[in-house]
């Protein structure tokens, strides 16, 4: 481990942890980090080990791969296996299990499934293969949805008619609301997502303090960012404040990226309902193409089964995503379910809580000691 600058400075970390310990001395606090990137930082740097036991972190649903329900993977496979289709997808989605196999096994059975880095690459495949139907499997929060929107605008402008998008884009605010309303969920505040907030800004989170009376602090991805944001949450609670604050001012602004938000609104509209793995159906939580883009909508062009599939019984991704259990408390964690042979989505993506814990969790103690913050 190298601590190259002020964002990993062990002395600064010690000071912050001391402040947190004092602020959290008289009560137990439970904060949720919404974003999978934060989950990764927390495990990677052993942050839970340096915090006092009175501060508990709950890992939230902010990993776009983890929240896609099985039925949508089955839909993707059905479209991919339609004769004449070239099905394009981000690499992360290839190993996510459907009810029988994943996109890689569909490819092995003969489907033309291709991995792309960007939706623009998928559009290029369509231009290069005018006689084939090219479908892009669109997933992600507001970090990736504007890119899909720009790609659709370009497809329309260039009259590329053999290109469609299977939209599974989701939005960040509804799951936060769903968690706040879920029975038995007692949280004292949120670490707001970092990169998503570069797009959506800070405004959409105001309902968290205003309606639910919980503070939210948007945080960066360095270990000290996360620790500092926790100190900011505790300071708010100590001072009786309840606000949206921004720890990550070097990347996130109040208004986000207005151009990205504008193209999103031009191309997408909210779906009435969308199923989230572990959280169930959440109304107005996902994006579908506006009627003007119906010609580029894979769900209208192809027969999509749309069958709801229950998660495998053994898998407890739902409880992990809601923060009810920790990854290692799942019955199949690290035994039947590993990053090589994932049963649940949380083990597939590197931003998933289970994969992050599997890869780094066992290093907790060691890393924390190296950081000099727990001696």
């Amino acid at each position, binding site marked *: 481990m*190298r601590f*190259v*600058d002020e*964002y990993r400075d062990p002395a600064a970390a010690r000071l912050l942890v001391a402040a947190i310990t004092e602020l959290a001395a008289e009560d137990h606090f439970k904060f949720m980090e919404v974003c*999978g*990137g934060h989950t*990764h*930082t927390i495990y*990677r740097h052993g942050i839970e080990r340096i915090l006092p036991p009175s501060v508990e972190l709950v890992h939230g649903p*902010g*990993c*776009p*791969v983890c929240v896609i329900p099985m039925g949508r993977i089955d839909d993707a496979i059905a479209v991919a296996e339609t004769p004449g289709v070239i099905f394009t997808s*981000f*690499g*992360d989605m290839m190993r996510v299990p459907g009810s029988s196999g994943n996109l890689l096994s569909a490819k092995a059975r003969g489907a033309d499934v291709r*991995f*792309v*880095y*960007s*939706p*623009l*690459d998928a559009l*290029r495949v369509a231009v290069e293969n005018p006689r084939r139907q090219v479908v892009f499997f669109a*997933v*992600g*929060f507001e*970090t*990736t949805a*504007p*890119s899909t929107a*720009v790609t659709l605008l370009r497809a329309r402008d260039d009259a590329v008619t053999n290109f469609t998008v299977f939209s599974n884009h989701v939005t960040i605010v509804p799951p936060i609301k769903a968690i706040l309303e879920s029975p038995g969920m007692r949280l004292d505040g949120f670490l707001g997502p970092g*990169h*998503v907030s*570069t*797009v959506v800004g800070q405004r959409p989170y105001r309902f968290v303090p205003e309606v639910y009376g919980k503070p939210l602090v948007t945080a960066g*991805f*360095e270990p000290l960012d996360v620790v500092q944001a926790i100190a900011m949450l505790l300071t708010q609670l100590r001072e009786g404040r309840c606000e949206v604050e921004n720890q990550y001012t*070097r*990347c996130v602004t109040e208004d986000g*990226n*207005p*151009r*990205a938000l504008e*193209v999103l609104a031009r191309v997408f509209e909210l779906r009435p309902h969308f199923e989230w793995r572990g959280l169930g159906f959440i109304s107005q939580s996902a994006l579908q193409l506006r009627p003007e883009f119906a010609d580029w909508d894979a769900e209208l062009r192809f027969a999509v089964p749309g069958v709801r599939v229950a998660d495998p019984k053994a898998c407890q991704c739902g409880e992990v995503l809601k923060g009810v259990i920790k990854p290692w408390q799942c019955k199949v964690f690290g035994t039947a379910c590993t990053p090589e042979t994932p049963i649940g989505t949380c083990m597939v993506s*590197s*931003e998933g809580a289970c994969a992050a814990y599997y*890869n780094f969790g066992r290093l907790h103690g060691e890393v924390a000691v190296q950081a000099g913050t727990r001696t």
Partner: protein
Amino acid sequence: MCLGIPGEVVAVVDAERHLAKVDVAGVRRNVDVGLLDGAVAPGDWVLIHVGFAMARIDEGEARRALESLEAMGAAYAEEVEALRSSGAP
């Protein structure tokens, strides 16, 4: 995917189509910069998601972010490999 990767603009390729050549951890590829406010110039640092620059960042933040990403190991390697193998012009 959801993880932004910082890159440094090395050239403006096509101002009309908002394309810039960006160096991401030694890999150079065209990135769409049309969602940023204003034009980019060589030397600017941007945060890239799936081939699109979504935010401007300062160089210090960019270098820190790259180091944390490198520390992520496999996830980062996959993202850079995805970028490299995407075969974009």
